[in-house]
């Protein structure tokens, strides 16, 4: 195998066109196969490809920066050797003042947005370049991508992410046990007590057809000693930020308050909230279109040890036997006591009682619950920097097409127009043809070619 640079075969591979292309193709294939490949294999393959891509990107970006800097430096010296093509030769009568023609050409080039470049000492003519900042486009774009990859890695290593559920009136104190689901990266530190708040109300708005339009959670921020500090709201697009901890809204549902009594036994005096903790949580199943919304959950009644399953329908239509909308117009519980063949089912509207399989239930009311995602991570500013740099680089790359021209005056009174551009030869040809036209030569004799 022949390396581009035998002294550094590793960096040769990292920067090789085939390797970069292969990585991009493998990454696209891996992403496409996410739902069919085994998760462990997919995750490890993705990490390996991203790591290789990071190294390759870093290596290529360094070379691109060096190359752009070298181009800039060479342009600013008079000894720069320009790659030239697209030759047009113009001639003037012997009486013409060629120095004036050259001055006019310089002015025209300035009008076209070119800036003059230094010329070598024995050279009679001028050099100019345009949009050379476009050379920075590719390195800046790739550097932005590099930062994005770095930020993604930093976030996944330092992030803590948890989900919690609060019923109206409950307080969140950022203790680990309050999270239903909790994940943290290997470099993360948990943040107990950085944020404390009480959920006062879940406020939902409904469309005319009864579907939920939006919802927000009104919360009271609490100080470390538990005193109310401020009232605020957590809504979609408006998370609560407390230092490095951010609390996002998630979903909301209902927690019916039901009083149970086992027949022929002493009645339980206090209402039992059918509440939000893992075995009691009312699941949000987002009802199908036209069926209204359902919230389901199950519960083992402690005295009778019977399993009780509830379906809460905010707007129950007894004629149709199903929910109609998500607005709580006729809150109703569909109750199942027991399991399998012994299960007994019944309908329990708000404020009424029902007895099934020896278990008496009073539907006393309902409260809303809301779930929240609590996140803290480092690396977000790096992510933003990556976004901005990659967009800036892409804009430079796309909008600025570097090109340069060289006008050489021969002792025979001919002006040779040459130029170069890797990215936009058509634009260069247009510039040269406009220049030739505006200079008003006696006989513009055009010939396409390269020198």
């Amino acid at each position, binding site marked *: 195998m022949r390396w581009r640079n035998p002294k550094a075969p590793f960096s040769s591979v990292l920067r090789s066109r085939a390797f970069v292309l292969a990585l991009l193709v493998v990454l*696209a294939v891996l992403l496409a196969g996410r739902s069919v490949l085994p998760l462990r294999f997919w995750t490890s393959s993705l990490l390996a490809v991203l790591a290789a891509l990071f190294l390759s990107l870093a290596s290529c970006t360094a070379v691109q920066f060096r190359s752009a800097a070298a181009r800039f430096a060479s342009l600013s010296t008079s000894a720069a050797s320009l790659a030239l093509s697209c030759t047009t030769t113009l001639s003037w009568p012997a009486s013409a003042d060629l120095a004036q023609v050259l001055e006019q050409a310089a002015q025209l080039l300035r009008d076209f947005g070119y800036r003059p470049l230094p010329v070598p000492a024995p050279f009679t003519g001028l050099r100019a370049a345009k949009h050379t900042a476009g050379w920075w486009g590719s390195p800046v774009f790739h550097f932005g991508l590099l930062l994005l990859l770095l930020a993604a890695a930093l976030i996944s290593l330092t992030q803590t992410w948890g989900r919690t559920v609060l019923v109206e009136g409950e307080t969140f104190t950022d203790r680990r046990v309050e999270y239903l689901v909790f994940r943290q990266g290997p470099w993360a530190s948990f943040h107990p007590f950085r944020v404390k708040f009480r959920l006062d109300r879940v406020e939902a708005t409904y469309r005319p057809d009864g579907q939920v339009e*939006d919802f927000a959670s009104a919360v009271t921020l609490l100080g470390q000693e538990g005193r109310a500090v401020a009232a605020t709201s957590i809504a979609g697009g408006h998370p609560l930020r407390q230092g490095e901890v*951010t609390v996002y809204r998630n979903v909301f549902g209902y927690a019916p308050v039901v009083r149970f009594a086992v027949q022929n036994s002493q009645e339980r005096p206090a209402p039992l909230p059918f509440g939000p903790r893992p075995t009691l949580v009312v699941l949000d199943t987002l009802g199908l279109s036209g069926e209204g919304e359902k919230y389901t959950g199950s519960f083992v009644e402690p005295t009778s040890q019977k399993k009780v399953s509830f379906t809460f329908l905010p707007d129950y239509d007894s004629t149709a036997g199903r929910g109609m909308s998500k607005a709580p117009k006729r809150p109703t519980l569909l109750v199942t006591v027991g399991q399998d063949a012994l299960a007994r089912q019944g309908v329990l509207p708000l404020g009424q009682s029902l007895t099934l399989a020896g278990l008496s239930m009073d539907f006393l009311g309902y409260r809303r619950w809301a779930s929240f995602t609590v996140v803290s991570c480092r690396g977000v500013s790096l992510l933003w920097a990556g976004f901005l740099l990659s967009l800036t680089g892409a804009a430079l790359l796309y909008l600025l097409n570097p090109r340069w021209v060289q006008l050489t005056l021969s002792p025979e009174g001919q002006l040779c127009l040459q130029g170069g551009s890797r990215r936009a030869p058509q634009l260069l040809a247009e510039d040269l043809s406009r220049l030739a036209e505006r200079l008003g030569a006696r006989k513009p004799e055009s010939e396409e070619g390269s020198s």
Partner: protein
Amino acid sequence: MSGSMVTAEIALHWVAVGFYALSAVLYFVALTFGKERLHRYASSLTWVALAFHTAALGLRWAAAGRIPSYGRYETFSSLVWVAVVVFTALRLARPELEPLGAVVMPVSFLLIGFAVMASPELKSSPRSFSTYWLVIHVLFAKLTFGATLVGTGLGWLGVSQERRAARPIALAATGSAWDKLPPAPVLDELSCRFIGLGFLALAVMLISGSIWANLAWGSYWGWEPVETWSLIAWLVYGIYLHLRRSYGWRGRRAAWVASLGLALFLFALWGLGSVFDNQHSRYFQ
């Protein structure tokens, strides 16, 4: 008030569909049978269609009180509108590219036909949608489609032009619409410029979408199918640009890769919603 606006908007949409159909047929006939003068009529019909379409979308926007990009009806209608605007801007700048209508207009007609077959019911969006990140996300999604459709069309026109140039002179019809088109290398270069614009727009779409997702749900990236497949389409366009730059891919091979990117983008936009239930599907279906 809103009801009568929606009725008028639906009628305007159907009129636009009719004009798009006529324009598509004329562009196609002009290019296939070399009837260059038909371009004038096709161009006028496109202007008329665009005027009706703009009025329809304007009414829709006013009636809904938000950018019309919610549900299949609005999403595809506005996609087509942006694609036709991109094409119109291009032919104003370079009238010799008029024959590109033979690619852009039939695709636009099919997509707007697909849009108006969906329910035109005015859906209200959640309040969390009223953020400028969403507007940026949606607008750049549409610009991606417009730029990549035009870019892919130019690529294939370049391929056809190249084949035509390679034919013996006796077989290559002269005085046809093809003569008006620039040579294949110019078409190929323009195609690359538009795909580059699409690549940039898709990057902005992905970034603004992830910022919005973070604000709404606390996560920049959720591995949602539409997100993932849009990223794949972006990677394919990245591969396209690398293939052109590093391996000098031009012509047919480049046009195939550009078409693959466009197909993936459309699959992400609509096809996925039909296969998997996802967060985006309720906005597209």
